[in-house]
């Protein structure tokens, strides 16, 4: 609990496209504590995925400092960064990204392949993990033999099979209908509580974001607000707070971002967005959990 799982300080990411600089992130500071549940919300193109890729060590910042699992990304070689991803991060993508023609167990076991775990142990752990996401009866199924919700569960099992410190989910329900999406969200939240893995969930849906206690609003490559709410979860009741944290409602963008928010960001020059002091430090009761 003492060390942050991920710490980003004034991180920026600029893409070079045919000589033109496209700033996707323009100075973002964000700390993900152990076991936390954080929703990252923002409109399409605001830089959410870019941020998630950086937090997961899939990409490197072009500016600022990024520390994952206590290690400064700038000091790591490509293979070291890959190993760090393998050990501390689990990714869940909107598009599932399962290997076709590969069974659910083997898909889930994939990260263990790169950890050098033996075949039998891999299968055992993958099967156990599939059991935890409610797919113990689908071990041998290939992705095209599974429903969308089931595929996303397989992807979640794959993300968690390595027992990572942080689970990064980029629009995990984006390709699912609302009922299936709801079930997937409940699963993610349950795993967050049960195993103490920090859950960072990217979404553009205010209702989804409203389920998290801590909500980070991103817009135009900057964090507009980072707020903690007393009443997490539940569908309808969190409505005012949801609006509060959602910059997607355009008139509220600068002024309405949470009570007592210090820096508006209309100028945005400082880059380091103000942070609210968070009650209790972590969102989930799971504590440090089993971070390997």
């Amino acid at each position, binding site marked *: 609990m003492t060390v942050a799982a991920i710490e980003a300080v004034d991180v920026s990411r600029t893409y070079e496209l045919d000589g033109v600089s496209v700033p996707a992130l323009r100075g973002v500071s964000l700390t993900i504590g152990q076991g936390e549940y954080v929703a990252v919300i923002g409109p399409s193109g605001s830089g959410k995925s870019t941020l998630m890729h950086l937090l997961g060590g*899939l990409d490197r910042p072009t500016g600022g400092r990024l520390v994952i699992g206590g290690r400064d990304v700038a000091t790591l070689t490509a293979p070291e960064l890959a190993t760090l991803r393998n050990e501390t991060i689990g*990714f869940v993508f909107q598009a599932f*990204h399962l*290997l076709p023609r590969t069974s659910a167990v083997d898909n889930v076991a994939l*990260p263990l392949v790169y950890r050098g775990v033996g075949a039998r142990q891999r299968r055992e752990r993958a099967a156990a993990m599939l059991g935890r996401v409610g797919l113990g009866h689908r071990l041998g199924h290939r992705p095209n033999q599974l429903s969308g919700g089931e595929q996303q569960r397989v992807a979640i099992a794959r993300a968690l099979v390595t027992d990572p410190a942080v689970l990064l989910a980029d629009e995990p329900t984006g390709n699912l209908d609302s009922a299936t999406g709801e079930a997937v969200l409940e699963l993610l939240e349950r795993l967050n509580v049960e195993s103490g893995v920090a859950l960072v969930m990217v979404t553009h849906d205010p209702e989804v974001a409203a389920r998290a206690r801590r909500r980070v609003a991103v817009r135009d490559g900057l964090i507009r607000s980072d707020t903690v709410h007393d009443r997490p979860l539940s569908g309808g009741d969190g409505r005012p707070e949801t609006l509060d944290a959602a910059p997607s409602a355009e008139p509220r963008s600068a002024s309405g971002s949470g009570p007592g928010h210090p820096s508006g960001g209309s100028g945005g020059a400082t880059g380091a967005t103000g942070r609210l002091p968070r009650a209790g430090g972590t969102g989930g009761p799971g504590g440090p959990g089993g971070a390997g």
Partner: protein
Amino acid sequence: MRVAEAWRVALDALRANRLRSALTMLGVIIGVASVVLLVAIGTGTKQKVEQQVEGLGSNLLLVVPGKLDVGTAPVVSPLDLKDVDAVSRVVGDPGRVAVTIASGATARAGTRSDFTTVQGVLETTPAVFTRSLARGRYLTGADVDTSRRVAVLGASVARALFPDRDPLGQQVTLAGVRFRVIGVFTPLGQSLGVDRDDEVHIPVTAAQRLWGTQRIDGIAVKAPDRERIDQLGDRIVAELSRRHPDTEFSAVTQQQILGVLGDILGVLTGVLAAIAGISLLVGGVGVSNIMLVSVRERTREIGLRKAVGARPRDIGVQFLLEAVLLTSIGGLTGMALGVGTALLVDAVSPIPAAITWWSLALAFGVSAAVGIVFGVVPAQRAGRLDPVVALRAE
């Protein structure tokens, strides 16, 4: 990632794309099979020719007018039977000296005819050239001395003229003159497409009378031992040169003939192998091409693997192994196909084929190497892919 694991991943990938893998392998299969087959044919031909030259009898010395060299014009022979006697004196044993005067002629028996080679020879021929008879007897010294019109038929001639009769004691007409058949040779088979049983032996004296000449074409000597064969050849050439100062003579041994033939056939085999090697190279380019397609097609897979912790090297090795597996499996299949075809060709066609271990080792080694060489670029490309870009790929 462990090496065994990497092999499994590569194998799985090939299995997942069975048809494409098979089609890619096809280029390598054809390349390797043709290397193996063509080298087998080259080697088989060489072996057979060597066998046949050796089968002429051991320690053989062929004495002919002119230089034995590729491309020199044949020289009209000044030799006659007195020269043969002189050579016999040099050798010390007339039983080791054979002669020939040969010409094409039509052999007739009843209504049947066959164009064949008629050879005028001495009674020593079977001993010098190690020939044996299937039926009857060979020419005798008396047959030669008295120019008796008797003939020994090669197996093909016997079959052509007397398909349903015993040729022994029958009459054959050679250049309008009748001869009596006294023997039939044991078949020799074919060599380089030439039927070696298509010949008729008659006494050299009868042949000279038939063609109205005193000449003979050449002399063959069976040397008593291998060590002094060159020395004997020199002495024979010296004696003949003394008798015919205007003509050059050559004495060649089997070893020299084998050397020349071996060189020619070795070059032939090399050329065949090179042609087949080109098709193997083309197969390799195909592998490279397919691997690049495969990398592009599986960009998202690469991105995902990297996201879950694959290092650039893991990805590179995976694709390299895939290429090596493609060409190795193709190489093994091509080897099996090449060996099978070679055995079939050897069995059912007159073309000889002999499998050599080095051609198999070479073909397989080259195909595996082709996999590495042509797999490196796609593998590097895969290993260097930016995971974020790869994951966003469509």
